[in-house]
């Protein structure tokens, strides 16, 4: 199960990277990056997952005392949350850029934005 999700995560990452590096359309690139970061998140979660344990939420069901034995590692979960937030921020920024880029040249082809080079 862990392996499956991890494999799925890596697959998504590769798909995302492939998509981002081969699609010339800026929006498609952004989507591809979103896919890749989903994959990253999946990998993150699956690394922290321990079979047979519960979510790291300390409540009545999981008392503090035996938390260490019953919950999965909370750190990756926390990381994922942060990563999602940050990913969202960056995606938003990229979309804003995409909009502005489109405004300047009326195209979304990344290879058209090469005024700076060398």
């Amino acid at each position: 199960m862990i392996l499956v999700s991890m494999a799925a995560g890596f697959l998504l990452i590769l798909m995302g990277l492939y998509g981002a590096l081969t699609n010339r359309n800026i929006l498609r690139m952004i989507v591809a990056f979103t896919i890749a970061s989903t994959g990253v998140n999946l990998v993150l979660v699956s690394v922290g997952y321990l079979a047979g344990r519960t979510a790291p939420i300390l409540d009545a069901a999981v008392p503090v005392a035996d938390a260490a034995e019953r919950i999965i590692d909370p750190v990756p979960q926390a990381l994922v949350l942060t990563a999602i937030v940050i990913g969202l921020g960056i995606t938003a920024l990229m979309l804003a850029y995409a909009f502005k880029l489109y405004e300047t040249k009326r195209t979304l082809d990344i290879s058209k934005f090469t005024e700076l080079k060398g």
Partner: protein
Amino acid sequence: MSPILIIAIGLGTAFLLAFLDNRLRATAYAITLVALAVMSWIAADWLFALSSGSTGPVEIFTAGTKPPFAINLRMGLAEAALTLLITVTGLLAAVFLKEPMMRLGRRSMAVLLIATMSFAGIVLTRDVFNLFVFFELAVISTGGLVLLSDDARALSAGFKYLIVSQVISILLLIGIIFLYHAGGSLNIDDLAAASAAGNSTVLLKSGALAFFLLFIALVAELKPFPANGWALDIYESAHPAFSAIFSAAAGAASLYAVDKALLIGGPAWLPVATAIGLSTFVAANVLALSQTSDRRLLGYSSVAQIGLVFAVIGQKDLLGDQYLFIAGGILLAHAVAKAGLYWLSGTLPERALTSWAELKHHPVLLFAFASFVAMLVGLPPFPGFYAKWQLAHALAADGRYLVLGLILLGALIEAGYLFRWFGYALKREAPAQQVDLSLHKIGVVLIAVAAGWGLGYLWGDLSGLGNVLTALPLLFALSFLALDWLPAKVKNAIAIAGLVAWFLVSYPGYDPLRLIFGVIILIGGAVILLASFETHGRRIGFYPSAMLMYAGLAMLIVAEDSFGFFAAWEILTLGSYFLILRGKKSEPHALSYIVFSLGGAFAILAGFAVAAQGTQPFALQGLADVSATFAPYVFILLAAGFMTKTAAIGLHIWLPGAHAEAETDVSPMVSGILLKAGLYGFFILLMTMGKTQFYGVELTYVLLWIGALSALLGNLMAIFQEDAKRLLAYSSIGQMGYALFGLALMNHLGWLMALMFVINHYVYKSMLFLSVGGIAKRTGTKLMYRMGGLITLMPLSFIAVLVGIIAMSGVPPLSGFGGRWIFYNAIMSSDARLPMVIIFLSGPIAFLYLFRLIHTIFLGQLKDEHRRLKEAPFWIVLPQMLFVAFLIGFAIFPGLALRRVDAYLGSFFPSHGLAWEGLTITSEYGYWSPVSIMIVVAVIFVVLLAWLVFLNHRAQKVKQFNIVFAAERPYRPETTHFAWNFFAPYRKALGFLTEPLVTRFWGGITGTLHGTADLTRRFYTGDGQVYAFHFVGFVVIVYLLSMGVRP
């Protein structure tokens, strides 16, 4: 105050700004500035506390628990310094960004705060994931700040940046999570401890890959070659104030992040760091060569400098407790200079490198520019200089010659394009544009300058080798910066007084050898400076440069250890560069001068480093004890370095232009005095190391050949020059060849002859340069064939040249003959016969160009436009007359100067000395009586002259066209003056020897470098996707290589 406040204030203020009414921009701006100032103050406070030792490094635990359960920050010395750098850069950038921020409102300010905060966070945090978070914050804020630019292209640059950042963050996250998986912690120190303890999971299998991903992602933030196209676009198009942050703050933060990460990876990863760093350093510098936009060039330079620091990080295992000093020195110098340059570029509206020419109307800004360039190149007294010195010594001591070599090569290329740029600023035609002289912008630049000098002082203090900035001569020279508003005549008087005073103060400490050099440099320098009384106005920039050179020279001859010697060497090089650059058409020549000189200086640095083998300070006397393994290499490196200064053949191509195009009073300084620095170096080298074998080849024998060839080819090239000053310049190559030859003879008289050349060459070359300079001033040309017949109009100049050429050609009875006499006696006791053939040939050839000089200028036909010329100005003639008097006096009484030196040299070479009895000087082989020669010649001359006057006293004085002209009459002086291509038959016979092979060789090398740069530039297509590909490819290649070399 807790360091966490730096982050908290940054974040908090950014949030606060969000609530502020968008109309209250001034308030928002003030709040931003205050917040940044407070952040800076906290960092400064910590830095002060930590460096004064009143407190030690502290760990801050954010959630009250220890890692791994909570994020912790650390504030140590390095962190404090870097945080201060980051926050101050942020603050100054905010000041600089006043207009765009006021225009765009509070959001831009918030983004700037976030950026500053996140860079500080990257430095402070000890948690890898936290590192990721700060990096992402940095990315987002960078993405925002890029848009501050007026440049429309910034938009696409920002997007490219985001694309690559996405890839980086994917790698980073995966790396982090697997590292966590393997090491069970996100805390860097825990992970490092685990990996150091050999905890199997950390650096094996997936752990290794995980670390690699983390590492490579962080390395990517350093913009390594070639995965850095995106960053360069940012550098080029972003607002310069932001580029300053991007280069200084972001660069420093990323470096520190990598440094931290390497704690986890351990020493095994250091070679990878070295390799990436070095290749980036060299390649980025090569690429920078062919840039035409100032900001992109600075971008490449930033990439290169960060690569250099990364390479230094790669030497961490070696550097020990000097690590921070070296890496910090280079990094801070880079950060200050680069930020300063970006800010400076922010005051200029145009982007071409040549458009910086506008700066020449603003001496203060020009000084700032010069300071920044010197800082980047690592010249004294800036931190990079000390750092490079220590780094070279550490590398050489450990035998990492390749690293050392590549670093020096890269630094030389960097110096090349930076000084070329500086040359543009000073010499090119300024486009019609206005420098933005807003107080806050200039203020920011000046703060950077002050910071640079302050750091220089600090690093000098920390180096433990002696602070260059406390040397009296240097301070005297720098004080002219402050005095530059005075009239030139006043400054000249001060300068002369300073030179003489310093001589009076210091001469009791000189041995006879140093005394001769001391007299030439200080008293001789003062005499030449008399000619500078001729100039009017304020002559901005001349005195600081000239006195910098003199300071370097004065420090050179008193230097006791290698560091002092090298520092003095660099100072005199820098001073003379500025001096040479002042000439009207000297831009390319000054550039080749500085490049060759720095190349030579680096050779000297390497030589000293190899010789010292880690010993610091290394006394110059210690060269005598260098072990036989290293001795030949040390000898070669030092000799090569000194030869760039004496312009030995092969390394001479900078000299003619540099000397010929310099100003009238500068030419004698750089020719008569500056060249002696190289000879002094040779004296030191040969005095200590003596004869040295290299694979069975006697190195002094090689020097003998080089000296002989320099003498021959220098002279030969001189005779084909049409430009009088160029002729003299080539002749200097020949003369220095003679002196080198004498030294390399390695016997008593050879050295005495070299010393005699030192004296004579100073006198007659200064005299001739002044004379020719005075004439060029009057005639408005340096081309000899456009002069002619000036003898009656400029009799004093003529006498100076006449005496000069008699002395120089070695014709008795003037002092040049003494040199020749000693020379013949010297070679009598030498075994090297073949190079003498060449020396024998070059002697008469000197006669050729000297005659040409005097003939085509003073004799022959006077030109129409020169009919009313006056004698050269008094102040230019005065030193010449002093020299004439000296030459005649020295010819009669050479003993006054030479006797003591002769005795002194006897302590090195006991045999073959001279006997000074009465009027006659006797050697083992022959004898020479200067007074008798003078008297006999004078008596014969006077008698014959009287006889001729008796016969011919009624001779009719005729004019220039009263010549027999095959029964015709001349039409114009121009067509009657035989001057152009004077030695045409000689060119037919021996002209093939003057084919500019050497020039072509060096031209080929620079051509290849530029060609490589142009070719490599094509990889930077400008397409963001391609850049992402580059990055991925880079990752793969580094992975394969690093895994391949590691177990």
